[in-house]
Each structure stands twice: as C-alpha cells, then as structure tokens.
C-alpha cells in the first residue's frame, strides 16, 4: 500500500492511497496476477454511512468487510491505514484474545469507530495513537487545517512515532508505504523512493487530486497487488475510487 497526505500551496489537504493486498496468496501464472487480488477487485465499493439521513462518513471497502481501511469524515478528517509487519504481530494479539485478554481493538474496528464517532483531527489522532491494538499498523490521517497531516506508526501497545506535515521544514506531504519512515525500505520493495521522487517533481504548487492520481499510477507504486486507488479532499468532502490494473511488465508487489 501507498498512502499520501499533501497540503497544496493554498492550504488544501489532499489524501490519496493505493490499496495493495493478496501477497503470497496464490499466483496465476497464466494471467501473471495474484489470485486473491483479482477476486477482491469486484468487491470494491464506495459506502456512504448515514444516520438520520445525514452522511456521517464515507469509505472505500471490500463488500463483506465491516471494518475500515480508507475513509473520509467530510470537512473534518481523512483516514487510511497501511499494513505494518512486526514480530510482535497480530497472531500474539489473537492468542491473547482467545485466552480472554480482550483489552485490545481489532485494527479495522478501531478505524471504523474513529470514522463514526471522532469529531476532529486531534480527537482521531489521539484515539489512533493511544488505543491498544491486536496488531501493529500505520495510520495515515489528514485534517482540515494547515499542517494537519500525519503518519502514526503503531505497535500493538505503543505509538512508536508520529510524523506530521511541517511547512516550516518544507515538509508539505507525508508518504507511507509499509516500512517505518526512519528505516530504509526492503530494497526489493522500495515503492517509497519512486513515489517521493514523483511528489518532489510535481511540487507543492502543482499537487492536486489529478497529479496525485498520476503518482499512484506510476510503477512500482502501482503494482500487481494494487486493487484500488482512492482520492479524497476533506474540504469538499469528496471521495473517489478506481479499480486498477497493472499491465506487464509490472512488479508483483
């Protein structure tokens, strides 16, 4: 996965993501594609969650999955999550749960609860940073005011790091793939470098949902695991998604 929150030179916050899933879950040699990724694509839907006939939040989901991986609380905040690998992983959280220790939250139920109940970027940030989880994760959160964009690096029990947009440091965007931002990504799976190269080439002056889509369409940021691309703009409440393909030659991940 690749998630980006960027602030343009007018103070608009833009949030884009590629959802990559299905690694090592069966390779279709004939079609050069991942079996599960291909089965997930027809399940991609945009959802408008309403209460009293008013939109509470919107999301891009796989039908049948009640948690959230990509969502927007219009005019308030945008949220995506990327997978984080750690030896202290989800299987430990599941074991604890089975043994009756149930003080942690399932990752996608937390994101659903935050989108449904949090009413500000700060409130969402606090909940995502402090709630105990069953598995580690990256939460990428965008707000509705200048400087409100961050990557929350989570272990199961701790908030390990928070990296925020900081215009004084000329950090006008934050970008997360699936590696801790202070570490080098696995050389076999470096989607961060090409994505950052393209962001820096576009510049803050020209970043928009359109140019963000261009970046999310550039291989290997776009790869055989990419099921959908979502673009969100908090100020308009706009969420749009597209089902993707990656024509050969294309990286398997």
């Amino acid at each position, binding site marked *: 996965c690749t998630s980006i929150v960027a602030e343009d030179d007018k103070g608009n916050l833009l949030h884009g993501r590629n959802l990559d899933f299905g690694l090592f879950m*069966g390779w279709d040699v004939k079609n050069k594609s991942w*079996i*599960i990724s291909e*089965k997930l*694509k*027809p*399940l*991609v*839907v*945009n*959802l*408008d*969650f*309403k*209460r009293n006939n008013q939109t*509470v939040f919107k999301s891009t989901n796989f*039908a*049948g*999955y*009640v948690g959230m991986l990509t969502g927007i609380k219009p005019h308030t905040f945008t949220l995506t999550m990327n*997978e984080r690998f*750690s030896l202290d992983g*989800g*299987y430990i959280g*599941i074991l604890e*749960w*089975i043994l009756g220790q149930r003080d942690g*939250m*399932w*990752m*996608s*139920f937390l994101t659903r609860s935050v989108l*449904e109940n949090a009413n500000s970027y700060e409130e969402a940030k606090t909940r995502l940073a402090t709630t105990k989880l069953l*598995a*580690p994760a990256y939460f990428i959160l965008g707000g509705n005011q200048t400087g409100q964009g961050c990557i929350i690096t989570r272990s199961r029990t701790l908030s390990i790091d928070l990296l925020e947009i900081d215009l004084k440091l000329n950090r006008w965007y934050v970008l997360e793939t699936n590696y801790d931002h202070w570490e080098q990504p696995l050389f076999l799976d470096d989607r961060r470098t*090409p994505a950052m190269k*393209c962001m820096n*080439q*576009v510049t803050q002056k020209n970043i928009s949902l*359109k*140019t963000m*889509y*261009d*970046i999310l*369409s*550039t*291989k*290997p940021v*776009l790869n055989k695991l990419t099921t*959908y691309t979502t673009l969100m703009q908090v100020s308009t409440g706009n969420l749009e*998604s*597209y*089902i*993707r*393909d*990656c*024509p050969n*030659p*294309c*990286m398997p991940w």
Partner: protein
Amino acid sequence: QFVPPFTEDCRSHMYPPNGPTFRGAVAWYTVDLDLPPSKRWNTLIADKKTDLVTMIQAIRDLADAFVPSGRLVELVDVTLPLMANTLPDPFSEEIKGIAAVSGIPLGEVVLFNIFYEVFTV
C-alpha cells in the same frame, strides 16, 4: 523501466482514469446506521453475494492447498463462529447479518473480517 522493479518515469495526464491501468469505476452504496446492525449490509451483500462467495472460495482453496485434508477450513468453520460472539458490537451483529444474507458460513465471514490480524501470521 523494463527491468525489475520496472520503475517508470513519473506518469502524467493519467486523470481522468482511462487506459490499461484503469479497470473500472466503483459503485456507491448507502449504509443506514439507523437500521439494526444485522440489517445494515443487506442491500450491498445481496448485490455482491456471487463475488463474495467466489472470493471466499479462493481463500478456501488456498487453505486446502496448505492443508489438503480440509482440516484448516473445518477449524475455521467450527471455531471462528465462537469468536464472532466475542467481537464488540455492532461488528458481531453486522458480521452475522452478512453471513445470513450471503449464505457463507459465519466462521468464514469472521475470518474475512479479522484477516488483517491473521495475515500477520
């Protein structure tokens, strides 16, 4: 560009989405949070039932590839329904509603919804 990782020059003018990297648009559905949790997903699942069954079957085939005896799928179908009752509401009721409408065994719908934690294994 033609050797792994096939890094391209930064693409431009890809929007509006078109061409070989764009498979299709994404349909919109409304989820009415005023409905009981077990009813909220009915419309969506009725529409996507076939695709969901196909996807679950692919995961089942994968499990059978690892454990040809079928014991792994059996384990999922026997134990994960018990897990469903331990999940916080409204998720437990929503997942049961999805299983009821889709006809997919409850344990397999639970597995689909906790896949993030399971996959880290």
